[in-house]
Structure formats: structure tokens, C-alpha cells
């Protein structure tokens, strides 16, 4: 963010890694992510995708919104903000969480890093300062946005641990999933987190250290298949992992205009993040009621779809006639060799008894065809390799 008084540029912003990402971007394919220029793909999305499944892919996640939450009441504040029990998240741990409005509808999801006692970083897709500040009422806590000050890279894939070791991050192999640790006298934070559902880490530094970090990382990874990875490849990986994408799979409640378009955590399949036993939190009353009455209207489901035609923008039917929902994310999964999708269906239909079908339109040499493809509802992520959890992880 620019300083008050200094005019903002109308040009799309550059992330802290732009000198490196622009060099790497042979295709010159970019999109604006929250006003920052972000690579769609550097050389080929599928090669980049395979880098993260087979070696290591590096994704520039600087535009992710970051807040620093500090103060004596930081824990109590966060515990009231999000639906999960934050008292269990000790310093050095990271929690995936959702936060809701008073009606129990999800405003966004994100990760909360417990940096040290009374000090947290909240990382989210959307921008929520107005909401986060409004929620400080009654708490001795400070919330500051640090999106532009903190640079971050996701380093994801089976060789990622080995690369970080080669980079000199001693003991990184002992970091457990959802753990965080510091190196270089605290200048570099590493968390074992990511959006690919695979072994992977995220590296966080102040902006001024960004280019140096990139160079060290790529130097260390040279012999271990490291590659820059764009947004297209990351999107493939996150669908395979079954991760929801805000503004794609659900809409933040504060952006919703039409009635009934916001979703509760239960409706998003995130009921495991809701702890109705803990102290009061935003949306608790509404969520307790929804749970008690079983009044969820929607259900987010993971679908394995017969055949090989991706079900982008498909309607979902119970049987082949009754329309009960729609696909929000879909792809052919190269690792799972499955045709997969995330879909929103009306509540009672999110099961295999409903005999779900996807209505798929596909184009071949300009001509459109349509199939009704049988869908199977699955519980587990489409891709969930043991190395994701192994500590210490293997070198490849």
C-alpha cells in the first residue's frame, strides 16, 4: 500500500519477486490478483503442475492478504472471531480457520499463524480489515495489514524439503505439518503449509529480502527440479487436494447480494472447523441452530465423475432429471487419473444414494456435444500422498 499523500499508480502493482518472476515468465501471461501482477503460467501450466507433484514448484503468494494481530487479547480476539478453538493452537503452530458473520455465514477462510505468545499472522484470500477492526471492540488487540510488507513463496512438492535443507535450513525436516519455525535470526519464517495437498512449505520474509530468498532457493533447487509455478498450475493442485477457493467455490458473505447465496461452514463441508463447545464466537448461535435443526440448505461435495470430460460449469442432477446443484471447480486430475469436481448441491442430495449426474458440455473441432455422466461422492481428497504428513519427509 502506498503512503498517504503519495498518489497511487494506475499501473498494476509488482510483487516483491517481480524482477525474478518476469524473467521466468517466457509466456508473458499474467493476471491481476488483488492488483498485483501474477503469472498464470511461466512456460506451460501442465509442466509447472507436474513440477509440484514430481519435484518442486514455487508459487509467488505475495498478494495474499496478511494481517498482523498482536496484543494481550490477541488469542481471545481470534477465538471470538473464528469458529474453531484457537486456544489449542500453540505458538509455532498454524491453523486453517473460517470466520463467519453473525448469521453464521462464512466471510472467508484463511490460515492463522501463531508466531509467538500474543502475536499472530492471519492470511486470507479476501480483504477484511473493516470486519477485523469492527471485531476488536472490547479487546485489547491491534490489527494491522501487512500484505505489501511481507513477501511469501509457496515451495511445494516431493523434493521441497530436500531443497530447503540444501538451502541451509537446518532441522527443517523435523517441522511437522502446520508447524512454523524461523531461520536467519528470525528474518525468514517457514511454515509447513500450502495449497497443493502435498509435501510443501511456505517461506515468509520482509519485502527487502525477497529477491535474495528467491535466488538462494532456486540455486539450492537447481538439481532437484525446482520450477516457478503459475496460478493455473496451483489451481489444478488445489482442486486435487479438495481445497475450496473463495470467490470460486463460495462467495464471501459480505459480498453477497442475492438472498441465499452465502454459505455456512456446514454447507461448505467445513463443519469440522466449528467448535460449538468453545466460548462464544461470531455466528455461534446461528450455527448451533443450524446444526440442531439440520437446517443446512446446501452441501459442498467432492465428485469423481465417470469418463474423461471435465465437468466445468455443469449442472448436477439427482438421477438425470432433477436439477440439484452445480459444479464450481472441475478438472481431469493427472495424478489421480480421475475426472474430478467440487460441486454445490441441495442438502439432502450430497450422497451416493442420490445417483448424481453431471451434465457436461464439451467441444470438439468447434462442435458441441453433451453427456450425462454418473458422479460418485467421495469423502477424501482426490490426492493425498503419505509424504504430505511424513516427518521427516524423504528427499524425493
Amino acid at each position: 500500500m502506498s503512503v498517504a499523500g503519495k498518489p497511487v499508480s494506475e499501473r498494476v502493482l509488482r510483487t516483491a519477486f517481480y524482477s525474478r518472476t518476469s524473467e521466468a515468465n517466457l509466456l508473458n501471461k499474467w493476471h491481476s490478483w488483488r492488483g498485483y501482477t501474477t503469472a498464470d503460467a511461466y512456460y506451460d501450466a501442465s509442466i509447472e503442475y507436474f513440477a509440484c507433484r514430481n519435484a518442486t514448484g514455487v508459487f509467488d503468494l505475495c498478494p495474499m492478504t496478511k494481517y498482523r494481530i498482536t496484543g494481550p487479547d490477541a488469542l481471545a480476539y481470534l477465538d471470538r472471531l473464528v469458529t474453531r478453538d484457537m486456544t489449542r493452537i500453540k505458538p509455532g503452530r498454524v491453523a486453517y480457520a473460517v470466520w463467519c458473520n453473525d448469521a453464521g455465514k462464512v466471510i472467508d477462510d484463511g490460515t492463522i499463524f501463531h508466531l509467538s505468545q500474543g502475536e499472530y499472522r492471519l492470511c486470507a484470500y479476501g480483504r477484511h480489515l473493516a470486519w477485523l477492526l469492527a471485531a476488536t471492540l472490547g479487546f485489547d488487540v491491534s490489527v494491522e495489514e501487512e500484505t505489501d510488507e511481507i513477501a511469501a513463496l509457496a515451495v511445494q512438492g516431493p523434493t521441497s524439503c530436500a531443497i530447503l535443507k540444501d538451502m541451509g535450513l537446518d532441522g527443517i525436516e523435523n517441522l511437522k505439518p502446520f508447524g512454523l519455525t524461523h531461520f536467519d535470526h528470525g528474518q525468514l519464517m517457514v511454515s509447513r503449509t500450502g495449497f497443493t495437498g502435498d509435501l510443501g512449505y511456505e517461506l515468509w520474509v520482509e519485502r527487502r529480502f525477497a529477491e535474495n530468498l528467491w535466488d538462494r532457493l532456486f540455486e539450492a533447487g537447481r538439481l532437484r527440479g525446482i520450477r516457478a509455478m503459475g496460478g493455473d498450475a496451483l489451481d489444478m493442485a488445489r482442486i486435487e487436494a479438495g481445497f475450496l477457493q473463495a470467490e470460486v467455490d463460495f462467495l464471501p458473505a459480505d459480498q453477497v447480494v442475492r438472498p441465499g447465496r452465502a454459505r455456512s461452514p456446514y454447507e461448505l463441508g467445513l463443519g469440522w472447523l466449528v467448535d460449538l463447545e468453545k466460548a462464544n464466537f461470531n455466528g455461534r448461535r446461528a450455527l448451533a441452530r443450524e446444526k440442531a435443526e439440520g437446517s443446512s440448505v446446501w452441501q459442498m461435495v467432492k465428485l469423481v465423475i465417470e469418463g474423461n470430460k471435465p465437468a466445468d460449469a455443469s449442472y448436477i442432477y439427482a438421477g438425470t432429471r432433477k436439477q440439484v446443484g452445480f459444479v464450481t471447480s472441475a478438472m481431469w486430475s493427472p495424478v489421480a487419473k480421475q475426472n474430478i469436481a467440487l460441486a454445490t448441491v441441495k442438502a439432502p442430495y450430497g450422497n451416493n444414494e442420490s445417483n448424481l449426474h453431471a451434465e457436461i458440455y464439451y467441444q470438439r473441432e468447434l462442435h458441441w456435444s453433451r453427456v450425462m455422466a454418473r458422479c460418485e461422492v467421495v469423502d477424501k481428497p482426490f490426492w493425498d500422498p503419505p509424504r504430505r504428513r511424513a516427518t521427516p519427509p524423504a528427499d524425493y
Partner: protein
Amino acid sequence: MNSYDAIVIGAGHNGLTNAAFLAKAGLKVVVLEKNDYIGGAAVSRELHKDWIYSNCSYVCSLLRPEIFQALDLARHGLQVTPYGGSVTFMRNGDYLGSYWDHEVAHREMARHSRHDADAYQRFAAETMRQTRFIRDFLLRTPPDPTSFRYRDIKELLAIGRRVLEMDEEAIYDTLRFWTMSIGDYLDEFFECDVIKASLAGSGIIGTALGPYSPGSAYVLLHHYMGEVDGNIGAWGFARGGMGGVSNAIASALQAFGGEIRKEAEVQQIIVRNGKAAGVALASGEEVSAPIVVSNLDVRRTFLNVMDEKDLDSRFLERVRNFHIRGSSGKLNIALDGLPTFPALPKGSSLMHSDMHFIDSLERIERAYDDWKNKTWSRDPYVDMLIPTLTDPTMAPPGKHFMSCFVQYCPPELDTGEWTDQDRDAFGKTVIDQISEYSPDFKDLILHVEIRTPRELEQEIGLTEGNIFQGELTMDQLMFNRPIPGFAQYRAPVKGLYMCSSSTHPGGGVMAAPGANAAREILADLKRPNTVPENFGDD
């Protein structure tokens, strides 16, 4: 040949629209206009050689696309080009820009308040919710809540359904919204003065309300409920000025066989045996028709061009009580070149946007105080634009037309009627305000047309110069507009109809009142309807 199926009094864009749909249905129609030009407040005029002024309305968003399509206005020459953004210059030398691009807009707002930049998202969503509600009713005749006719009940149910479709919280919000002030509404979202000031403009333009007057929040909707190509809330320039709208509608009307007579001022609506029979012109000529439609505001229609004896007293009393207070003025300026605004970065896209020179709600409220005290605002809210940066047809290359809409400007001064000296002093106030932010502006001025409520009333017959032909307050909206019981475009005299901005859904270059009235007339005549339905938002 002085006899028609229908006479429309006034060639404002609503009168023309009304006539076009009647002519499309096969009626023999004539539009009678007092001026030697058509368009009323949607007009382009060459008042300085080679310069075309949009001398009243200046930007287009409300014009219903259904009507654009149904009258084939594109073929009749109308082209609307969107523009975006705004800038509010601040006393401290800084400015707040609002950009077409959401990200740049966010970044700029965050420069002033990160909180507000993020709060804007919820503000936009909630305002859109209200906007969608009202949009549904623009091309519909308001139901009469006291009637038991099938159609009124059906329409009332449609409103009810729209309300029930909302989430619980949205229903509460809606009820509050319709009576709230724009200031209170903005205070619920934002903390930063200049951000609030920049958004408040839409709540006060054209209305004799201050930013903290109840009811001004609705006025915001009136500026948000339009669109350009489905982009709700977007505004555009009609190529060639706002007369482009009226001229295209007039061309469509003529293509359907309708007639337009200029310099044909109507002096009297003739009523015989309780039925409209025609009109008498100022020239003494009589034109007869069983249907007479008035494009004049409701006060002018019933108090100026009708014989009071043809109407009932309670009705006339209500007409007299109709709020139609003038509160706006306008400057149209021919410029020898593009003025510079040193606060803006070189090459800023904000030059193409609306410019404002008042940076807090308090200053706007003070500007309103002046109006209450019967003087024009010493520190006015000006909505200034340079359309020639977008439209190449309105001035020679390199030269510019500047449009300055001014709030507040009273219909009468504490010293009495407006004089020419007062008018010039008013103009000077506005020019001085702009000059504070643009040192070279004054030297570029070649010609200025200054319009106070006096000129607006005298030239186009807007009573008191009220730009919307009646305040947009809850007591004068929907089934209360213009007069309770008379919201369905029918006057109390058989054969007499109203089609002006005084009727639902109100002022602005929207063409909806004219079209809605035509639908009612055709229904009464048992003719097939030619007026399109709402496209509908899904």
C-alpha cells in the same frame, strides 16, 4: 388537419417516448413543444459557435435499455459510451480518486483509509441489494394499495414477494434505508471524511435535502439504479450530448408516423363534458384529440395549463402540496484548451471522471444551510465533467466543453427574485471554486452559460427548476407519485394522462415514465401493447 388520436404536450424525452410508443401502436400522434428545440432537459444546444452543450442533463445511465432496444434507438443514432470514476479535491492539497478499475480504486481508498477501502465491499453489496429491489419496478406501473383489482393485487404481491425473497437482515435494512439520510448510511460503513463526501454526492444531487436529511439515502439509489450495457450503476455519455437521446427518440417517433410541432406552446387543456378534448395553443389555434398526455410536471399541468374548475379541490390541494423545490444550478463552459489540475499526477485517468471540490459531509451540510437561508452555496457541491475528453463531437479538437452541475441553488433568493447580477455572482462562485484547484482554468474560458432555477423554469418549464420534476422522497415515490391515488398515469379527467418525470419512477433521463404511461393509455384504448417489459435482473 388539426385532429389527432393523441396529443402529447411537451417534447421532453418522456413526452417523445410516450408519443413513440403510441405511434408504434398505430395512433395518430402529435407532440407540441413550446420551445424551438426539442428534448426539454435532455438536450444538446450550440450556444457558442462550434460548441455543443449538454446544457441540462449531461450523463446517461438511467435510460432503460428495454426502451433503447424497443425503439431501435441505435439505428436512430444514439450511442452511449461509458465513463468511470471520480475525483474529490481536498482543501489540504490532496485528492481522493475513484477509478474504473476496482483494484486501483481500492488502493486509492486505502491510501486514505485501509478500513474504508475494505468496508467498501460491504457497502457496494448492500447498496446493490437495495438497487436491485427498485430496479424491478422501473418499467412497471405502481400498484394502487387501496384497490382490489386483480392487477393491483398482483403487483402488490410482486412487491411483497421481492421483500420476502430477501434475507431477514436485508428486510430490516431496506425499511431503514428508504427513510435514512445518506450521511447516516455512509457513517455506518466509513470513517474517512473525504471518502464519505465523495459518495454522498449521489444522495443530494437534484434534491432539496442535505446529506443528513432523512430520505436522502434513497436518492443515492436513484443514481445507482441505471446501467450501461448491464453494468449496473455505470454512467455514460450520449454521443453528441444528451440531446442525442431525445433526437433519437424523436426520430423513432417520426419513423412511426408521429408528428412534432415546435414553437407550439400549449396554453390550455380543453375539457368537454368531463373529458379531455384537445388543447388550445398560445397562438390561439386549437388542436383536438380524445387523448391528451402531459409531459409537464404535475404542478404545471394542473395549475398552469388547466382550468381549475375542471378539477376537484382536494386534488388541486394535493397538487399544490407536491414538493418540487429547486435546488440545483448549472454552468456550461466553452474552454480554449484543457485546464490542468496540479494535484493530479500527470496523465491521470481521473481527468476523464467527475470532479468534486468539497471534501467532507460537514461542508456539504453547510452548503445546504445556505440553500435554506435562500442563497446559493458559497462553497457548493459541484459535479464537474469534461465530456469532450471522451466525446469528439462536442467541441473542436483540442478545445473542450465543461459541464458543471451545482448543488445548492435556491429558486428564490433572500433578496427576492433572481436578477442577472445574482446569476453572474452565482456563476463566479462556481468558477472561483474550480480555480482554486486549477490555476489556468479561468484564462481558458471562452463562454459560459449560467443556469439557475430561474432559467430552468423559464426555458424548459421545470417548476422552481427542480430537475426531477418533484422531490424523490418516500411520500412522493411509487404509488404516491405524483399524487396518492393517481400513480397510474391517469389524471382525474377522462382521456387526460401524465407521462413526465413527476410520475413513477421519477426524474432522470430514463424514459420509463413516458413508456409506462403509454402502456396504460394503450390498455385503456384496448390496443395491443407496444411497451417492452423489464429485462429483469436474475
